[in-house]
């Protein structure tokens, strides 16, 4: 499993190198993840060590984002006067985008097309 962690860190550092070297506005984590997926697709399989390392770190992801989540309680007053805009965007925007995805997927998999994909 430690070997798997080393692979993850290696791809992250490679991603950071690409980000800084090429001046890309994309995080090193995402670039590293794309590199990892490319290698996995080429090899056609995941090693047990990498699979268990990624499972372990993903299972504690919620713990890793908590310091960011708790910040909203301490910095909420920075957005005073904008809460109507923020909450409307999140509530109405999300309901609209769920509606759009459902309608689009229903249309794309409609009765005839649906059978073709079976």
């Amino acid at each position, binding site marked *: 499993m430690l070997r798997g962690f080393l692979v993850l*860190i290696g*791809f*992250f550092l490679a991603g*950071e190198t690409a980000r800084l070297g090429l001046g890309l*506005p*994309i*995080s*090193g*984590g*995402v670039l*590293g*993840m*794309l590199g*990892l*997926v490319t290698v996995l697709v080429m090899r056609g399989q*995941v090693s047990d060590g990498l*699979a268990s*390392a*990624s499972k372990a*770190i*993903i299972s*504690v992801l*919620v713990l*890793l*984002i*908590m*310091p*960011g*989540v*708790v*910040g*909203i*309680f*301490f*910095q909420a007053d920075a*957005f005073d006067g*904008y809460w*109507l*805009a*923020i909450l409307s*965007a*999140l*509530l109405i*925007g*999300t*309901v*609209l*985008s*769920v*509606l*759009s*995805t*459902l309608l*689009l*997927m*229903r249309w*794309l*998999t409609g009765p005839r*097309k649906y059978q073709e*994909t079976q």
Partner: protein
Amino acid sequence: MTGLAGVLSALGDDPMLAVGLTLAAFLAGQALVNLMGKPAWLPAVFVSAVVLALAIVSLPLTYAAYREGALWLTVLLGPATVALGVPLFQQMHHIRQMLMPILVALPVGAMLAVIYALVIAWALGATPHILASLAPKSVTAPIAIGITEALGGSVPLLMGSLLLTGVVATIAVDLLAGQLKVSDERILGFTLGLNGHAVGTVRAFEISATAGAFASLGMSLTGVFTALLLPFLFPF
């Protein structure tokens, strides 16, 4: 500098206090949510964050000092983002089942999730800083943090937005799927993952393993697509 307060404020400089508090609040939040029967509208991470905020306020510890100590945890977000590539690779074969619908719905759906939010917020007078914090609201947290940082937004506002979006998306799918007579678990899962990231994916796994697989696929693809495109399109 004697007594409990002095000791506690000295401990405040020790990163292990921040790490320990985060872990304790995480476990307490999970236990509380389990006691309440895991309602879909209340993600465990929100309860954990409330517990953590109360703990920080009641201790002689500032949020700034807490966040500095918690860097020992957040530094792992980089390799954790890379790790998301493994389930993406493992779930990729599901794409073949619905190749055309996914290839069309993914870019359109992921773009609309951003556009609806930005247009509404902009029309109601939100600043560019706020727009940059709201833009990746449907993207899974580790990827979304990188996007908001690249756009110049606020990570705490983003995190709050992510939670609310995940909850609203989950409720909206439950309500709208019946109205629209959509019962294909693959569509429900994909919609939950695309719009509601990890919160939606947890709900999808409660529907079925198939819904869960399509949700994690929708979540990963939305994250990658948005991370690659948004930083180049956002200035408009």
